[in-house]
C-alpha cells in the first residue's frame, strides 16, 4: 500500500495496488497455515518474497514483461502455486551472480552537518520516513514509528543500520558507499572521516574489499557570477587533490543541482565553465603517480524540487561531457529518472534532452552520437557507449512494481547505453533493505513481443557481449568460439555469469571499478560477515529461510487518518 513520506496526504491506492495487496493477503494466509507459522513469522521468510513477486506479476505482468523465476516457463498463472522453492527469493547468490550495489548511503548522525545544515536533516527525515519512520514512542499504549529502533531518528540511517541491512539482510556482495552534498567536507552528512571509518570497519571485519567509497565535490562553492572563479574553488580543488589518494576515493560524486550560496539556485552544467573546470581537475589528479583511473558520478533525474536547483538535474549535458572526455568514466546516477511513466523511447523528434527522465538521458547521448548504437562491433547487433554508465538507484525501485515499465526501462537502456553499461544501485539505506530490489531483478522476464521489439531474443539471460546468444545454454559456447567476440568461452557449458542480468547486478560495475568478482566472491564465502549472516539466518536456502529481525516495515502514514496523527504527534518541525 502506498505510503506518504509524512509531507502529504497519501494517495489512495490504485486499483492495481489494491489487487496486489488482496492477492498477497489471501496467499499469505493460505501458505502460513500450510507452513504452520504465524503471519508475523511468515512474512519474514523467503517464501513471502515469492508471494510478493507472484502477486505483482499477477496484476502487472502482461504485454511487455512478467515476473517469474524460470525464464523458460510460462508466466505464473492464477491456477499455479507460487514457486516457493525457488532460490531467487533467498539470500544466497544465484549461479553467476555477483551483486555490487553502486549506490549505498548512510550518514554520520553525530556530524556537524546537523547544526550547519538543518534543512538537510529535514529533507532526509521526510524522504526516508517511509523506510524508517519517526522516533519510537508510545501512543494509546501501543508502540509506534519504531523505524530502525533507534531513539535518534538519524541513527536509523547510520553506519550500524547500513551494515545490517546491506550486508546481513541482503544478498549484496559489495556495496559502494556514495556521497551527498556538500563542501566543506566537515559539514557533509557523510564526511570523509566517517566514510573511510565505515569502509575500513566493514573491510576490517570481512578481511575482503566489500565496501568502496566515493567523495563529494562541487565547482561552484562561493559562486559570484558567470565568468568569475567561485571564491572557494581553489580551496576545494586542493582538498580534492589531497583526499583522492589519501582516502582511496573510487569516484567523485557530483550534484549539478547543488547551488550556492543556497542549494536551489546557481547550479551548474558539465558543459559550462564550472563543469569543464571540475572534470579537468578530476582528470588532472587521476594522472598523479599511484592514482586510480578517473571516475565521475553525477546525480541526474530526481528533482528534489525545493531542496536543489532541479533544472540542473536534467541529463542534457551527459552526451557532451562523455564525448569530450572519452578517457574518463561517467556514471549517470538514476539514469535521469524522475518518476515518469516508463515506455519505449519515443524518438529523437519527441524527446527533449532538457527534461529529466531516462528518455532525456538517451536523447543527450544520441544528439552527440555517443549512444550505444554508434558503437556496435562488426558482426554484432548490440553496442556499448564508450564511457557512460546508466545507474539505477531509485530508478529500479520506482519501476520494479510494474513488469511492463520495468521491461521498457531495461530494454531501452540496453539498446541505447549498452548491456555492459547498466549498473544496479539501490539507494539504500534510504529505502531500508535492498533485498526486495534484488529479488525483483532476479525475476523479471521479457515477453516475446519485448524480446522482438528490443532485439533481445533471450531477454536478460542473453550474453552481454552478444545478446543474441543465450548465456544459460551450453550450446551458445561451442568449441569453435564466436567469430566476432574475443575470449568467448569454448567449453560447451552454460555461463550464467555472462548474462545481461548478472552484468546489471554487479559484474558491469566490477569491470569498471577494476574488481575481480569471482575472486571477491571466493574471499567473501568464508569471511566474517558471511559467518555472521549464516548464524543469523534461520532455515537457510529453504522457503522457510527467515531473517528474524527483518523489519519489512514501511513506516510512513498510509491513510488520511494516519497522516494527520503523524503530523500531530511526530512532526518535529
Amino acid at each position, binding site marked *: 500500500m502506498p505510503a506518504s513520506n509524512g509531507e502529504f496526504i497519501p494517495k489512495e491506492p490504485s486499483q492495481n495496488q489494491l489487487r496486489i495487496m488482496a492477492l498477497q493477503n489471501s496467499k499469505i494466509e493460505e501458505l502460513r497455515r500450510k507452513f504452520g507459522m504465524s503471519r508475523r513469522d511468515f512474512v519474514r521468510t523467503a517464501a513471502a518474497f515469492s508471494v510478493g513477486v507472484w502477486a505483482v506479476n499477477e496484476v502487472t505482468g502482461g504485454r511487455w514483461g512478467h515476473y517469474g523465476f524460470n525464464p523458460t516457463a510460462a508466466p505464473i498463472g492464477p491456477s499455479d502455486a507460487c514457486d516457493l522453492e525457488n532460490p531467487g527469493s533467498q539470500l544466497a547468490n544465484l549461479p553467476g551472480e555477483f551483486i555490487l550495489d553502486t549506490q549505498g548511503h548512510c550518514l554520520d548522525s553525530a556530524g556537524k552537518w546537523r547544526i550547519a545544515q538543518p*534543512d538537510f536533516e529535514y529533507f532526509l527525515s521526510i524522504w526516508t520516513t517511509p523506510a524508517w519512520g519517526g522516533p519510537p514512542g508510545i501512543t494509546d499504549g501501543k508502540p509506534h514509528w519504531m523505524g530502525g529502533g533507534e531513539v535518534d531518528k538519524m541513527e536509523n540511517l547510520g553506519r550500524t543500520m547500513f551494515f545490517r541491512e546491506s550486508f546481513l539482510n541482503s544478498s549484496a556482495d559489495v556495496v559502494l558507499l556514495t556521497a551527498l552534498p556538500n563542501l566543506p567536507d566537515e559539514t557533509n552528512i557523510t564526511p570523509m572521516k566517517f566514510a573511510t571509518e565505515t569502509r575500513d570497519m566493514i573491510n576490517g571485519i570481512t578481511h575482503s574489499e566489500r565496501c568502496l567509497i566515493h567523495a563529494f565535490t562541487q565547482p561552484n562553492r562561493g559562486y559570484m557570477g558567470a565568468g568569475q572563479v567561485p571564491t572557494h574553488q581553489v580551496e576545494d580543488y586542493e582538498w580534492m587533490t589531497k583526499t583522492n589518494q589519501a582516502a582511496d576515493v573510487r569516484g567523485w560524486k557530483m550534484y549539478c543541482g547543488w547551488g550556492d550560496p543556497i542549494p536551489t539556485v546557481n547550479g551548474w552544467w558539465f558543459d559550462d565553465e564550472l563543469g569543464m573546470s571540475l572534470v579537468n581537475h578530476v582528470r588532472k589528479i587521476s594522472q598523479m603517480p599511484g592514482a586510480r583511473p578517473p571516475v565521475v558520478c553525477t546525480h541526474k533525474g530526481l528533482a*528534489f524540487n*525545493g531542496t536543489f536547483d*532541479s*533544472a540542473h538535474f536534467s541529463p542534457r549535458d551527459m552526451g557532451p561531457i562523455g564525448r569530450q572526455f572519452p578517457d574518463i568514466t561517467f556514471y549517470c546516477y538514476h539514469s535521469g529518472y524522475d518518476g515518469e511513466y516508463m515506455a519505449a523511447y519515443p524518438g529523437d523528434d519527441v524527446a527533449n534532452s*532538457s*527534461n529529466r527522465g531516462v528518455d532525456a538521458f538517451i536523447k543527450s547521448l*544520441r544528439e552527440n*552520437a555517443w549512444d550505444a548504437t554508434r558503437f556496435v562491433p562488426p558482426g554484432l547487433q548490440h553496442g556499448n557507449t564508450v564511457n557512460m554508465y546508466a545507474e539505477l538507484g531509485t530508478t529500479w525501485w520506482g519501476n520494479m512494481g510494474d513488469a511492463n515499465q520495468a521491461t521498457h526501462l531495461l530494454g531501452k537502456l540496453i539498446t541505447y547505453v549498452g548491456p555492459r553499461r547498466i549498473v544496479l544501485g539501490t539507494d539504500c539505506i534510504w529505502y531500508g533493505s535492498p533485498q526486495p530490489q534484488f529479488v525483483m531483478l532476479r525475476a523479471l522476464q521479457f515477453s516475446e513481443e519485448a524480446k522482438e521489439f528490443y532485439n533481445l531474443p533471450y531477454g536478460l539471460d542473453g550474453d552481454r557481449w552478444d545478446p543474441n546468444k543465450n548465456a544459460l545454454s551450453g550450446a551458445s559456447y561451442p568449441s569453435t568460439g564466436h567469430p566476432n567476440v574475443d575470449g568467448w568461452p569454448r567449453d560447451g557449458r552454460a555461463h550464467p555469469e555472462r548474462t545481461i542480468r548478472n552484468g546489471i547486478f554487479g559484474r558491469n560495475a566490477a569491470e569498471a571499478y577494476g574488481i575481480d568478482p569471482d575472486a571477491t566472491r571466493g574471499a567473501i564465502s568464508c569471511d566474517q560477515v558471511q559467518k555472521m549472516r549464516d548464524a543469523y539466518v534461520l532455515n537457510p536456502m529453504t522457503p522457510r529461510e527467515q531473517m528474524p529481525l527483518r523489519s519489512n516495515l514501511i513506516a510512513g502514514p498510509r491513510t488520511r487518518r494516519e497522516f494527520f496523527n503523524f503530523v500531530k504527534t511526530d512532526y518535529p518541525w
Partner: protein
Amino acid sequence: MRRVLTALAALGAVVVMAVPAQAGGPPFQAGPKHGDEYTSTSADPNSGTVQIFALNARQPSAVHCAGDGPYATLQSTQPADGVRSVSVAYKDGSWIDTVVLNIDIFGSKSGALGHGAVTGGKMGSSGTVNMTLFSPPQPGETLTTRFGLQAHPGCVPGAQPVGLNGSRPFEAGRVTFVSVTTG
C-alpha cells in the same frame, strides 16, 4: 617570395571554393515542438523567432517533478556533401538560467553529426554557435540543422515547508535565429 605567397593564396582560394560556405536565413522550416499542458511554445519559420514559456504549477512530490518541458525548434536542410562545420547565428536572445538554446545536426543516413548548446541566462544576447561535425557526412545525404529553445518541467516553487525554491516560478525564453552557415 611574393610568387610563393601569391601561389599559396591562390591555392587557398581554390580550397575554399571547393567547399563553398553556404548561408541560409529565414524562412526556415518548422521543426518539432511540444510540451505538456503547463507550457506554450511557438516557432515562426518566417521570422526565425522561437519562444517558449512554462508556468510551473505542476504539483510536486518530495522527490519527483515529472512532466514535459517546453521544446520548440526550427530547422534548415542542405546537401551534406563536403560540409565539415555548421554555424548558427542568433540575435535578440533573452532566456532565463534554466532554458537552453540547443542545436542538433544530423544527416539523413549518418544520424547525429553535430551538437551545440548555449546555456542561460541571457539578456538581449546575440552570437554565433560554431560546430565542427563529429565525422564527415556520407555521400549524397541531406544535412538537417535543428535549432531552438528547450527547458525542463518545473514544479511549484517552495514545494516544501523549508521555503526554498527549486524550480523557478516560470521558465521563459525568446530568440531570433538569423542564419545557418555550412562550411
